[in-house]
């Protein structure tokens, strides 16, 4: 396994397979990964762990991804954390509602883990202060 220096990614998904796939890949790719199975858990983990990025499924039990994102973005502590919406909802308008809720990126499933990893890397690299700290 590679060194854990690329940042902590919180993966929120109610499907166990998905959590497993992205965890395996991201960890292999050098990221730290935290997991949550529903919106509420996502809020708790985000507040608790302060991850560098959150991969947010939208259809979630307890609290859906839209609501969770909205709350994250309303919270002063978590609002700066980039959120990638990753959903199997492909119909028109979903990307827009996700954007309105505060998601920074919208990706439709199926999404191969390598592509997700590249996207995460791109977002984190766009925030130089953070990566520099990490890099130093």
């Amino acid at each position, binding site marked *: 396994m590679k060194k854990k220096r690329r940042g902590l990614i919180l993966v929120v998904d109610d499907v166990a397979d998905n959590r497993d796939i992205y965890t395996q*890949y991201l960890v292999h790719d050098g990221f730290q990964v935290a997991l949550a199975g529903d919106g509420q858990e996502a809020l708790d983990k985000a507040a608790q762990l302060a991850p560098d990025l959150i991969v947010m499924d939208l259809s979630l039990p307890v609290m859906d991804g839209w609501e969770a994102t909205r709350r994250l973005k309303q919270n002063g502590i978590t609002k700066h954390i980039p959120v990638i919406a990753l959903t199997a*909802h492909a119909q028109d308008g979903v990307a827009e509602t996700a954007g309105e809720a505060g998601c920074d990126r919208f990706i439709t499933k199926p999404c191969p883990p390598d592509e997700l990893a590249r996207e995460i890397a791109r977002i984190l690299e766009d925030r130089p202060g953070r990566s520099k700290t990490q890099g130093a």
Partner: protein
Amino acid sequence: MSPEAVSAPASPEAKLAMAEFLLVQENMAECAERALEWLQQHSGVTKALCLAVDSSQKQLIALAAVGWDEQEPADFMLDLTDRQHPYVAALFKNKMVMLRGTFSDPRAAAAPYSPDTFAAIPLGGGDQTAERRAVGLLIVNPASARTDPDLQWLNDYMMPVLRRRLGTSHLSEAERSLRRERTLLYNILNTVHDPIILTDTEGRLVISNRSAELLFGAREEESEGRRRAIALNNMFLSAALSRHAIEDVSLDSRELLLADPADGSDLFFELASTVFSDVHEGTGVVTVLRNVGDLRRTTQELEENYRRLRLAEEEVRAERDRLDLIISSVAEPILVTDPEGKIVMMNDPAERLFTMPKSGNLEETQNVQANDINFSSFVSNLFLMSEGRQHHGGISLVDPEKSTPVPVEAISAKLISQQGELLGVVTILHDQTEALERSRLYEQLRLVSEALEEKVREATAELVRQNEVLRRQHMELQQASQLKSQFLANVSHELRTPLNSIIGYTRILMQGISGTVTPQQRVNLSRLDANAGRLLTLINQLLDITRIEAGKMAVTMAKVSLSTLISEVLAEVEPLILQAKLEVTQKVPNDLPEIRSDREKIKQILLNLLMNALKFTPKGYVNVSATYQGMQDRLIVTVADSGIGIAETEQEKIFEDFRRSDDSVAKGYAGVGLGLSICRRLAVLIGGKITVNSKLGQGSAFTLTLPRAPKTP
């Protein structure tokens, strides 16, 4: 005269004056009074009374009295049969007697009375030869005066005169009456304007009135012309009268032209003569000349009258013409009927109904007769009604020519003169055919209208019902549509979720994250990955088609640079190009105008076309070109290849759902055949079109045509 008056013997002059007076004076009373006064003056008489026998010879009447003072015997009279009365006795003794105290006799109480002695002298008594009794009595006082020479003179002279007067008094009366009658007759004759002439049997003029005298009576002082005219008139008259006599016509009338002696103008007379006979006067002829006017004036008057008559006639005619014009200008039949019910006037429309046809056609004649009967009975109703000047009601008439019924509304009015006399009846007929037809049509219209209304009501009810059905169907459809959308969303979501796992795990395996992978394993994993990719494409295409079909494919119009877009698409398929080993070129002019369209849709179409070209071109080239057609204001993008081509029979089918050319299937090309059908749908969605030009074995050229700007939505 007072009794003391001094009497003096009458002078010869006084006697002459008295004699003259008596000769001239005709009134006996005047004579008597004057005679008594004369005696008072000349013969010493103080009182005197003169009595005379009246014309009837039955009474003795006082004519005059002098010297009696208050005992004036003005209306004193005695009956001659009273022989005992001294006066009557004196009269019958016929000689002078002395009367003394006789006035105390009660029978003479009414007479002038005096105790003195009187002398009674019978008048006419001096005529000794006459056997006749005296006609009067003169009583004087004092009696001594009887011997006075003047009294003797007066008696000698006056009494015979008086006697004559008394004797002829009756005749004179008759004469006066006759004269009066004569004067009256003359006056009457003179008031007659026509000249009247009475001639004797010899034709001599006996009597003529004033008008006749003007024509026939010559006078000495008149002018020569006048006299000649009068002479001529007399000549003509005599000729006319003698002819009259010769022809022996007792009553005749003829014309006579005479000249007016005053101005010589012609006078035209009509002569009417009547023969009369009188016992005393014998026979004569009365002729009346009736002036029939001078001819000139008559002619003038005649002409004037004729002119007036003509004017009046013209006025009447004009009035009648006006009336005719008014009546004939009325379109409704108008008839004027006299009080006997006979039609005296009618206008043309009425004549059509009531005039016997000239053709003599039997049916027409019968129709007119029927009309006449119906009309007459209607008008007679009006005559029967005593009160009311108007009458109206319906009459059933017949059109004489067509024999069609003509229902009319008739209004009759009595024509009544100012004197209240019935002159006739005016009747106006209103043709009711049109009104009846109108009401019939109206009724029909009403029925149709009602039927229509009923149908409209039914249709409206049906519409409401169908509307309700439609509304429900619409609601159901909406629900179904929502369910479908929801279903699609769910299907999409549920298909993608396992696909995500497949692809995810495949990639993990391929990258050796789960342990070392043999080359053969890697190949197998690649195939797994590729098929997962195709499955994803298929799912996406299916979703696209259903979204377009459901009208849920959103179109976002914006400025699009085709040259940029083409480069971008080529860049995206770069790995495939490299893999295909084909000559891929692009020919896009620099000045290609920007268009307004949906960038993502164009990109999807071009990607699809380009991937198809690469897929079905084993060798050769793939060329992407773009041009602007200013005339049609549109852009053309063509993707041409030197591939396997499409048979002409297949060229339209390839745009249908799930269609692939038989060759592509035969040659083992992958794909389910949804790409082109989606491309065509997308092109139409943004206002463009896709066409193909291909030859089997020689390559294909797919052309996307886009408007520079979408038509106003």
